[in-house]
């Protein structure tokens, strides 16, 4: 990896952490409503995988789809951070025009195909995106991020089977943070090692890696993405990770021990990557401090400002986007009586 890339990735991850921290504050200030699920702790997974995916090329991007914990996946795929924040503020300038909110960030211009609230819902959608890409003969792939809990949904098993039988170019990324809300994986899942659930059962290649180490994620994600694109087959990659905050802003707590939390905090992907870069002499403590300051300024003076100052949707436009404005856009000839 080039030195410049290392520094860029560190900056991105710090930005993602600060962005989510700021969302937390904005929720406390009642600027954000509804359900808010933050990504803190898991940054290395989306950052690493999507850094290896095709992004930044608009409609040529790979397709990305995920659940409700979706802000960072959207931004890393190419959704402007200020539009994501504006969405959280319910503004017309938001990624989904204020209609979707935190759990439903969409940016079709970047092929970020959405955040979905129903656990397991994105699996078949992702396979469908892959089928579309394959049908059209592009070399795009679909990347589906979902949690460990989602793998107990029927859609997981049905989709994996079909994706395998039909050779669909889809990468399933399991972000295994050990919990589905307050239920530990050992209490919900017969085979907690997720990657083992797919290889023999569905004949899909799979592997498990450390999701707290950005360099590991980059390396393994590259291999997986290359495989999916080249072989036109699904792949299942599992990253072991941890969320540092509650499941959402309302969290029952008490379902995990402080010791366990501290143990995982030792593996903080940002702290450890920072340490490594300092050790390698690429960056100093002061550089990082300056970087953080710069990020905070950007969040406050650009992103939050944009979200604050943007207009809300008009109430008169309540029914806009329910159906196509054009009653039958595909109709080309005269209507038959």
């Amino acid at each position, binding site marked *: 990896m080039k030195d410049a890339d290392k520094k860029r990735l560190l900056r991105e991850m710090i930005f993602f952490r600060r962005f989510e921290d700021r969302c937390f504050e904005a929720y406390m200030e009642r600027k954000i*409503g*509804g*359900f808010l699920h933050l990504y803190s702790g898991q940054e290395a997974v989306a950052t690493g995988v999507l850094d290896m995916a095709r992004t930044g090329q608009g409609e040529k991007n790979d397709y990305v789809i995920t659940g409700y914990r979706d802000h960072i996946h959207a931004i890393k795929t190419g959704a402007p951070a200020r539009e994501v924040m504006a*969405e959280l503020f*319910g*503004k017309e300038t938001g990624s*989904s025009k*204020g*209609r*979707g*909110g*935190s*759990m*439903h960030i969409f940016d079709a211009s970047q092929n970020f195909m959405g955040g*979905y*609230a*129903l*656990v*397991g819902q994105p699996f078949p959608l992702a396979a469908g995106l892959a089928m579309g890409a394959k049908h059209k003969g592009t070399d795009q792939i679909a990347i589906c991020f979902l949690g460990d*809990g*989602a793998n*107990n*949904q*029927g859609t997981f098993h049905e989709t994996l089977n079909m994706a395998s039988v039909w050779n669909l170019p889809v990468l399933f990324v399991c972000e295994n943070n050990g919990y*589905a*809300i*307050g*239920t530990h994986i050992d*209490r*919900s*899942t017969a085979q907690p090692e997720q990657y083992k659930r797919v290889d023999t059962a569905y004949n899909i290649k799979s592997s498990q890696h450390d999701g707290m180490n950005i360099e590991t994620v980059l390396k393994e994600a590259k291999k997986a993405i290359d495989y999916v694109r080249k072989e036109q087959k699904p792949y299942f990659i599992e990253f072991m990770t941890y969320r540092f905050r509650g499941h959402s802003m309302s969290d*029952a707590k008490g*379902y995990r021990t402080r010791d366990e939390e501290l143990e995982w905090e030792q593996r903080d992907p940002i702290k450890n990557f920072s340490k490594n870069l300092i050790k390698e002499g690429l960056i100093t403590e002061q550089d990082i401090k300056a970087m953080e300051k710069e990020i905070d300024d950007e969040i406050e003076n650009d992103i939050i400002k944009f979200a604050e100052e943007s207009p*809300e*949707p008009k*109430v008169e436009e*309540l*029914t806009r986007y*329910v159906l196509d404005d054009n009653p039958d856009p595909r109709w080309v000839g005269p209507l038959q009586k």
Partner: protein
Amino acid sequence: MAETAYWEAIRRAHDEEMARDKMVIAMGEDIGVAGGTYKATLGLYDKYGEDRVIDCPISENSYTGIGIGASMVGMRPIIEIMSINFALLALDTIVNAAAKIRYMSGGQLQCPIVMRTPGGTAHQLAAQHSARLARMFMSTSGLRVVTPRGPLDAYGMLKSAIRSNDPVIIIEHEQMYNLKEDIPEEEFFRSLEGAEVVREGTDITLIGYNYSVHLCLEAAKRLEADGISAEVVDLRALKPIDRETIRESVEKTHNVLVAEEDEAPVGVGSEIITGIIEDCFFALDSQPVRIHAADVPVPYNAKLEKAAIPHADDVYQGALKVLGKI
């Protein structure tokens, strides 16, 4: 009498029934160790153990199906589905199995399950967490559908539902779990059938169920200040519907409004008003009115959300419209 919150009423019914009958079990996501999203099973995991307060994986169709299967051999599962939106994943097993097994088997089998789930909008939970869907269940033969408006019914109807030999869908509401009411400390039951006049009046009948009863009650208070006496009827059960109580009220007031939080098409209001036309059309002095949600997925933005769902003021304005006052 003891002041009891809606969630406490549900918890108490679970606790009493589980203590009485070993066949009663609770199933759902996060209901055990975590005590339930709405605290409906708080403490029961410690009391009854993991075999009777069962934390389920996120597999709604299959764990509901497992509950249904267990009910066919004598168990009494109370299944909590965290939000009615997720109940859609279990529709196959509820509609194609639970609702039909008694009939298909010529009465040999039954599925005495209880499925509890909150429907309705809360605050900015957006399109995939705000479904109401009462109309979907009330159109399915073979189910009972009830909508407790407060702690009294939440407790009394759950007790009855657990003992009922039919599949019972209990539709709760995100915004009602903390609602408080004095309820008797001795054990009691509330019928799974029958509407109830919750406020007497002479000029207009306001019909609601679940949360919309509260909108009707609030509107009735405002109407009273205008010198209009509104009667409020709580449907309580959407399946079967108590047409008799509705007819009696309409024959008394001659004017009617139905308030539902659902979208209007093929909804509760359509069904109730059709019934009124069939049962007592000539008692009406005015055109009935439905107050309902806009025909849109529920928006995230707070202002749009407010515009999309009905409020007490809409019921109030609607009543004035029925009476030709605006």
